[in-house]
């Protein structure tokens, strides 16, 4: 399924992928990469949507995402389809580009409203304090809602390319676990017991469990337990729907049209994280379609830093004596050699860390984006990254 060269692999992803998930650790340029892929897809005639989680302000502004909104918003073609990317072929006719910034709480609220049996039930849940915590603070809720939203967009079928930026967690793979985590919460034994209708609950709950609950109440306060119980009563009848939904969302992650793009920087910790993520994907029978390495230093030639440093030292010696003009020139030249040695060292260290990355992450093609002179936060700079990724 994957093409060998990174350019071809990325072409294939934006031309024939349906759901594309950009994953990686924080600060490596995931959002930017997701936006670039969506823009390039649109340039190739696809109806593309980028779903972002937490974009930097200026990129959000560029994408027209000034406020959180639950619905995608289309971006004027004049902004992204311009001549700034002369190479972008558009063989399938003009495409479209939309963007959406995920709002975890309102996505969850919609879900509750949709699955509640009556509007009153929905209302009771939405007003419950425990529910507000679940919607806002449960670890993994953001990840789960990202998947939920993805599933909804996929079902609606309005977009043929959906590129998703994953939440900024240190552990890039939290979101893979998110549907499971919700299910685990629902399956928790204490939960099951509390879920029982009042009378059965009193009968089934052993003295041991009651004692347990009393102690929990003593530690965290009894209103907490009351909230949980009220929530569970209100939630009654809906949990199976949620469970099924979590299973469907999980299945979407395994769909052959879902592609994973790993995003990393050339730093060791980020590469280790990408590697770990790739292993987890492989374990669960999903493959990595491509790896994008952002912010790579240019190589600046092939010389060894040690030789360059030795050269700088020789020049230092020259700069210690002799005519002033010669001393100054030697000192300035020594500084230039030292700088080249520094940059060669980092290029070499990056190369060492990237060595074998392809093998380590299951043979996926690896694309490199060099350090750019500016922050990527407008369509011109997105196009610049696009040119690098899509023309090799």
């Amino acid at each position, binding site marked *: 399924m994957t093409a060998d060269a990174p350019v071809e692999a990325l072409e294939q992803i934006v031309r024939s992928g349906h759901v594309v998930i950009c994953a990686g650790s924080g600060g490596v340029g995931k959002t930017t990469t997701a936006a670039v892929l969506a823009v390039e897809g649109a340039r190739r005639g696809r109806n593309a949507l980028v779903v972002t989680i937490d974009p930097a302000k200026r990129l959000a502004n560029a994408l027209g995402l000034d406020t959180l909104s639950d619905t995608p918003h289309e971006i004027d073609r004049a902004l992204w389809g311009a001549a700034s990317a002369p190479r972008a072929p558009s063989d399938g006719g003009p495409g479209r580009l939309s963007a959406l910034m995920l709002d975890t709480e309102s996505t969850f609220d919609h879900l509750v409203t949709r699955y509640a049996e009556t509007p009153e039930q929905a209302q009771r849940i939405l007003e419950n304090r425990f529910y507000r915590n679940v919607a806002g603070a449960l670890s993994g809720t953001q990840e789960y809602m990202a998947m939920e939203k993805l599933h909804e967009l996929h079902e609606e079928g309005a977009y043929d390319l959906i590129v998703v930026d994953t939440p900024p967690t240190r552990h890039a793979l939290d979101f893979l676990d998110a549907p499971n985590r919700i299910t685990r919460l629902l399956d928790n034994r204490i939960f099951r017991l509390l879920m029982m209708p009042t009378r059965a609950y009193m009968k089934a709950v052993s003295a041991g469990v009651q004692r347990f609950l009393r102690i929990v109440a003593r530690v*965290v306060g009894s209103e907490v337990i009351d909230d949980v119980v009220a929530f569970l009563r209100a939630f009654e009848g809906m949990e199976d729907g949620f469970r099924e939904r979590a299973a469907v969302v999980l299945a979407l992650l395994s769909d052959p049209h879902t592609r994973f793009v790993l995003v990393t920087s050339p*730093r*060791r910790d980020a590469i280790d994280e990408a590697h770990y993520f790739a292993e987890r994907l492989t374990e669960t029978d999903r493959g990595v379609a491509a790896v994008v390495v952002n912010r790579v230093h240019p190589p*600046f030639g092939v010389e060894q830093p040690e030789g360059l440093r030795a050269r700088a030292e020789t020049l230092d010696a020259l700069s210690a004596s002799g005519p002033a003009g010669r001393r100054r020139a030697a000192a300035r030249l020594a500084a230039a050699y030292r700088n080249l040695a520094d940059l060669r060292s980092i290029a070499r260290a990056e190369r060492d860390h990237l060595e074998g990355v392809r093998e380590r992450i299951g043979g996926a093609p690896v694309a490199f984006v060099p350090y750019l002179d500016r922050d990527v936060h407008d369509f011109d700079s997105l196009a610049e990254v696009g040119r690098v990724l899509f023309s090799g």
Partner: protein
Amino acid sequence: MDARAFCSASRVVVVAGKGGVGKTTVTAALAVMAARAGLSVLVVEVEGKSGLASAFGKPELGYHEIELHPGITARFLTPDEALVEYLEDHGLSRISRRLARTGALEVVATAVPGMKDILLLGKVKQLEQDGTADLVIIDAPAAGHAVSFLLSPQGLLDAVHAGPIRKQAAEVVEMLHDPARCRVLLVTVPEETPVNELVETAYAIEDRAGVSLGPVLVNGCYPETDLPTSPAEIQELAAAADVFVSDREADDLAAAAAFRSRRGAIQAAQIERLADRLPLPQIRLPFVFAAGLRTADVELLADALEAGVGTLTPVPG
């Protein structure tokens, strides 16, 4: 200000910043500087693996303290283990095992926002009061999370009206609000997005969480240099110094110098913008020319940190 005074200003220092700005690097450098000044240091990791141990050539951290470097120990903290320990300390060891086994912590933690943060910060407070180390450094969760991490004790006070957890939260808030006990050091790199986020985080931490901020640590700064950026200029210098430089090498030297100058200019502009928008002293740490941290680099950064601290004026009192 000398390093010892700086490191003794509060026993707890929280190092916070956006992912990828080098929080762990700064944590390591700060620990080395404090250890050199004769203080015993405990570094606490609260989120995932961070590369701290590997920077000192040690294996992954665990829940028990290990020595990373002379004078520096480190450990990992998880809410689950902190809860079990908390309950055991309060004579509830039977329930603690049960809570852990049934996974009920997830339910309780969901019911009480910030519960996990309280457990972690409560443990930190305990370490602070036990005098386990002269300096306790917390490598905080990534930026946005750092704010909610520090806000949660206050939030919990609003949500829970009784019980030991409330007492715990009140004690943590007391520690966080006392600049003589706890400070936050924010880390950023001189680039646009990280600078923007740092400014937002700084105001949120000071105004909303009420925690005092130390100087901002600007990581990854290129030292200022005036380099020849064209091959012609390189060849002129070579002629004046009476040495031979091949054309290819002149091209590499010029390209490397031009790259460095461009990045230097971007950084200078961002450092200035940060100073405009945030009235906190800055300490600049040099860019480390390596793609992964080693002990020697940490030592270099500790030198730079010490030099930066030396330029700070001590706050009277």
